[in-house]
């Protein structure tokens, strides 16, 4: 019970980690600054703060662009990055599988089905699915996606109460995803090209469709789920050894499973509802975090994926703007095209350092 029993490596390790966190915060500020500055209209970095505050020193158009366009987009990107990464981490730990992502249980399939029904269901067989909706507002799409994601989430939670084995849960999720995917394909097959295009645009993912009004919903929902998540590191750590060990350590695995499913599906479901199904961030960021911090401890990993997830999403959006051009790429294209080689590199490098799971 003396100082000898303090963890010897703790001090140096904790200091090193603190520095990495500081660097990550700086990196986040950097990508946010660049993202605010670059785009179809270039706004100098030094004028950004004034523009955010709506000062008269800068052009009105700049204030408008920053306040109504770029700022909400960046807040959305940050929330999406956090939501996807945190839920991805939870899924990877719960299934003890490095390939698990936030959508492994079919949340995005549910959302996709909802949106597909809303956009294309009306044209099919004279509007059997929904009353005719000629112009679907962005809010309508969000609602449809929320309903779909909510339905999927409900099914997952229901299954989580009955099914005890993670593997069975995984298979259920995959089957649900396939079934929903088949229905979406059917809708696409019978739909007019313009509807199909509208659906495709949603499925590419975007951060720029969310305005301050919608953020008033998105911020508290994501924030609430994150708050819950901060109570889970202990249980998540115990699950690293598998459910059986966790049980013998006194963890209520049933309650833990429900908590994980609840937080993960709220996080990923909300993001998908507002931004579309955004791939890759949820599977990549947890890996990068484990490699960067050389730990599987969720007390470190949860803050890490929050920061790195935000950085990844804002950076992806920055690249998608193709600074200097008028073109904007779909987010999913960027996350996959730039993310895949990066993750491959991280994982291959990490194999020597050891990741949480055997790949």
């Amino acid at each position: 019970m003396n100082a000898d029993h303090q963890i010897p490596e703790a001090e140096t390790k904790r200091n090193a980690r603190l520095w990495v966190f500081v660097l990550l915060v700086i990196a986040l500020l950097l990508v946010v600054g660049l993202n605010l500055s670059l785009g179809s209209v270039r706004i100098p970095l030094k004028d950004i703060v004034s523009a955010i505050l709506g000062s008269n020193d800068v052009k009105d158009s700049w204030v408008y662009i920053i306040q109504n366009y770029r700022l909400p987009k960046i807040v959305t990107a940050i929330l999406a990055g956090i939501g996807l990464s945190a839920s991805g981490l939870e899924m990877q730990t719960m299934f003890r599988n490095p390939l698990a992502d936030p959508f492994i249980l079919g949340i995005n399939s549910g959302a996709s089905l909802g949106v597909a029904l809303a956009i294309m269901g009306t044209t099919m067989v004279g509007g059997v699915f929904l009353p005719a909706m000629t112009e679907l507002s962005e809010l309508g799409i969000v609602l449809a996606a929320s309903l779909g994601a909510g339905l999927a989430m409900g099914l997952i939670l229901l299954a989580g109460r009955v099914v005890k084995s993670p593997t069975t849960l995984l298979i259920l999720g995959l089957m649900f995803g396939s079934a929903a995917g088949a229905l979406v394909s059917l809708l696409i097959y019978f739909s007019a090209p313009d509807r199909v295009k509208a659906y495709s645009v949603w499925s590419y993912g975007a951060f720029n469709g969310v305005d301050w009004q919608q953020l008033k919903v998105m911020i508290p929902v994501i924030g609430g789920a994150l708050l819950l998540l901060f109570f889970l590191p202990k249980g998540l750590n115990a699950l690293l050894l598998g459910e059986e060990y966790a049980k013998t350590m006194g963890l209520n695995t049933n309650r833990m499973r429900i908590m994980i499913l609840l937080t993960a599906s709220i996080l990923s479901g909300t993001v998908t509802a507002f931004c579309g199904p955004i791939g890759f961030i949820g599977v990549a960021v947890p890996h990068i975090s484990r490699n960067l911090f050389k730990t599987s401890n969720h007390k470190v990993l949860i803050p890490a994926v929050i920061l790195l997830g935000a950085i990844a999403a804002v950076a992806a959006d920055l690249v998608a703007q193709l600074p200097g051009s008028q073109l904007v790429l779909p987010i999913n294209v960027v996350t996959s095209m730039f993310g895949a080689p990066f993750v491959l590199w991280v994982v291959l490098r990490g194999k020597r350092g050891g990741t949480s799971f055997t790949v």
Partner: protein
Amino acid sequence: MGGPERKARRDIIHGLESVLHAKSLQIGYLNGKPAKKVIASGLDLELRQGEFVCLVGPNGAGKSTLLRTLTGLQPALDGEIYLDGKALSRTSRKELAHKLSVVLTTPVEVGAMTVRELVAMGRFPYTGLFDRMTSRDWQMVDVALAMVGAGDFGDRMVHKLSDGERQRVMIARALAQEPRVLVLDEPTAYLDLPGRVAVMSLLHGLARGHGKTVLTSTHDLDLALRSADRLWLMSREGTIKSGAPEDLALSGDFQRIFARENVGFDSRQGHFSVREKTEGIAMLEGEGEARLWTERALKRLGYQLADGTEAEEPLRVAVIQDENEIRWLVATDQGHEAFSNLGDLADFVKQLPKNQDFKPAA
């Protein structure tokens, strides 16, 4: 001996406090095709403070099911288990985790984790909601590491340990839970022979030296016979006989459970051996270690050592030991054949015609 004295003696013998007690326990699975699949029933079992008990039995007897039931990982179908006098069915998971910890068969696959972090997980039942480790918690981690002789590799990464080292660390994790009872499911399954010996002697030491009650299932019968205080001998029919290893060997129970066509339990030597068809009788001259290993070689070839009662003329083998070399002589029709090692001798003996009469060596 009078009544009171007799009772006093019984108390000395049975004075060890009972830690875990199963009463008419029925084990098995609930959601099988017939509503429940019973593996064993009517089990009355007891674990006493500080004893090392090995659960042995053929594959498929239900050893894992029994251990899973005793540790609360699956419910008992009937009967009750008492831990420290309290029924398991009325004990919370957390309370149970304070008294009993486990090491499971399947090796855990964790990376990016130090040995210390892994062992610290054993403090789970003692830390609060946010898992803050106090200095006493870290002290227990160090104590646990020292108990398994892993005090010097706390800072190493778990995925870089050898199988044997990892098993030690998993035992340390279980010890960090400060359990009264430690239950292990085949902790030696993935280890090489020296690793097995090390783990079994470690478990023995934990019981003897630290007063832990240790229950382990194992397939290493030799090691179980040598190191366990008691064996739980589980048959394929789901019965369990409990007793000192020596008693179970003497009574023949041990042999019966493991009876196989070609494998015999040599109750004089206390180990299992391949039962070869007898090729003949051998008479061996010689002493010491060289004699012992020559005897093993001859047995392997199917020869039994002569005890003087055989009608058959034995194969005569002599071990001749100088200061710096050993030679073997085998008597033949023509005199004798000399060998400088047992391999050559074995090759020669193998090609001898069977049931041939040998003349005595010169």
